[in-house]
């Protein structure tokens, strides 16, 4: 994961510059400093192509090169890629419909009334509110974006963004089913996810900069003189097309890792407790399994300690390739890189602290 982040930092470094300019050195939690002081290159708008290239290229290399390049590998890649996409589409639609509805129908004052005025208090409240959105991670990004558009403080919206896919009833129920007879695993997942979400919200209040957020995709809310239904439809459509493209980028990258990394690699790290925690955290990022299924996968990694498996389930819904692509598309790459790197670190710390006491 480290390497991947650094690579990402390097390749996007010059590209990220125009949007964030020179104030970017105060990076949260040792995220690779990537964007300071580099003059604007001539290709700032091509970064999705770069991301796409990074995702597609390994697959293409698989196709062209060597013994692995024969048909079955490519077919498996296509199948995995398509299945991640197909599986994500309903949840993405749910999320974008909800975000369109929030934008068109819910007046901004509702949120200011419901959430505590003090942002530091609003963060845990919003985190706990994540429990009501029964979707996987694709649904929460557009919703969080529309919440910010309606005047919710970004810190609270991010706490919601992180906690919603991890602590909703569906996910907790599947966790209980996947780990029969160990309710402490469910409790640890709930607490560690909530702690990570709140910590990231507070971290944003402390270190976050508004200018990392791309202001381009703004939800304007209802404007007088336009039909609310038309606004809903256009917002829904825009968000879906936009986010859908990025989900596919993420699915391609995840499929590449899914097909290219054989399971036998898993055994290598299971002996060392600390390495295994980091390794499963990295695996969660790369595999991008839906948060409603990751508990079953975690349960199957029997060679690993409960702590490492908890880390897998806490990191997975908050940071993964398809989520990073989606966040980059929604909030901008300057945000996505910093936020994901910091979230990964915080999530590992929270899992180790809470898992260490509970498990």
């Amino acid at each position, binding site marked *: 994961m480290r390497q991947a982040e650094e690579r990402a930092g390097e390749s996007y470094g010059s590209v990220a510059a*125009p*949007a964030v300019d020179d104030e970017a050195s105060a990076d949260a939690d040792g995220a690779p400093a990537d964007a300071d002081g580099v003059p604007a290159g001539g290709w700032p*708008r091509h970064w*999705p192509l770069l991301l*796409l290239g990074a995702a597609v290229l390994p697959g293409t290399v698989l196709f062209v090169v060597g013994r692995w390049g024969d048909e*079955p*590998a490519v*077919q*498996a890649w296509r*199948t*995995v890629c*398509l*299945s*991640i*996409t*197909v*599986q994500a*589409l*309903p949840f993405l*639609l749910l999320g974008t419909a909800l975000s369109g509805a929030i934008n068109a129908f819910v007046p901004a004052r509702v949120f200011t009334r419901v959430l505590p005025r003090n942002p530091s208090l609003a963060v845990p409240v919003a985190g706990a509110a994540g429990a009501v959105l029964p979707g996987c991670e694709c649904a929460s990004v557009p919703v969080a974006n529309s919440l910010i558009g309606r005047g919710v403080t970004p810190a609270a919206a991010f706490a919601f963004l992180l906690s919603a896919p991890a602590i909703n009833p569906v996910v907790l129920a599947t966790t209980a089913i996947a780990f029969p007879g160990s309710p402490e695993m469910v409790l640890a997942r709930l607490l560690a996810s909530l702690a990570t979400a709140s910590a990231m919200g507070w971290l944003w209040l402390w270190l976050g900069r508004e200018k990392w957020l791309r*202001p*381009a*995709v*703004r939800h*304007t809310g209802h404007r007088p003189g336009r039909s609310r239904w*038309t*606004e809903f*439809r*256009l*917002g*829904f*459509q*825009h*968000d*879906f*097309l*936009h986010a*859908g*493209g*990025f989900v*596919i*980028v993420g699915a391609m990258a*995840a499929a590449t890792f*899914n097909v290219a990394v*054989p*399971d*036998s690699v*898993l*055994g290598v790290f299971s002996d060392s407790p600390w390495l295994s925690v980091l390794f499963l955290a990295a695996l969660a990022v790369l*595999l991008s*399994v*839906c948060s*409603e*299924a*990751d508990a*079953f*996968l975690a349960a*199957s990694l*029997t060679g690993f300690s409960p702590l490492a498996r908890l880390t897998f389930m806490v990191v997975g819904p908050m940071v993964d390739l398809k989520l990073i692509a989606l966040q980059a*598309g929604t909030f901008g790459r300057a945000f996505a890189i910093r936020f994901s790197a910091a979230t990964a670190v915080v999530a590992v710390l929270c899992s180790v602290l809470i898992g260490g006491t509970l498990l």
Partner: protein
Amino acid sequence: MKRPLQAVLLVLSGVGLLHAALLTDLYLRYVNDWMRPLLIASGAVLLLLGAAEAWSLRRPGRSRETDERHHEDHHGDGHGGDGHDHSGVPGVAWLLLLPALSLLFHAPPSLGAYTASRQATKPVVQQDEFDPLPATSPVPLTLRDFTSRVQQDREQALKGRTVRMTGFVTPGERGEGWYLTRLLINCCAADAQSVKVRIHGAPPPPADTWVTVVGTWHAGGTLGTSSAPVALDARTVSKVDRPANAYTDALPLSPPR
């Protein structure tokens, strides 16, 4: 992206999903069967959304106005702040064309021997009590049931019994022997896990062929403990049709002919 193209993209995605989930059962190659209502609903919503977009563009006047704003937006993209509205969609949305066309015209097959051969076997769930085996012979068993009975059933109910199991063929490492295999998924094919039973005493059929094998447990170690090999001495191996839902560990339904 021009707005008529957005409508086309939405309609194609909707039709693709409906084609896969409503008209055919292609979706079973990619996701679990409980996703079907969700996929049909999503397909219908996308189709409606695309139709509504196309309809709104048919009305004169209004569409031109929004189109102009779209052009403006596109220049503003990435610099931010200049009245970006919902109509500006980045080019990355074109990627939605890939799954739609893939579902409609060139759907990739279910995962098979390639994936199974690269995966560790799904661990056996700890089970203490086993129901008595039915008296029929051969006994139809799922691969999972066979695996847990071989390694955990202290009663050794499998001893001397003839069993029948269905799965697909995965060649062994370095071309030695073969496995009867099933891939199981929880949510989508990305989380597939395999169950394998080693087959002895029969030449390997081509990879990915679906077969029903009748045979007895391949003796070794102590039956009912983890020292027992999950393996079968095959008596007959017969080809069967690929089941509609390949990602379950279902019992073999009809006896092979």
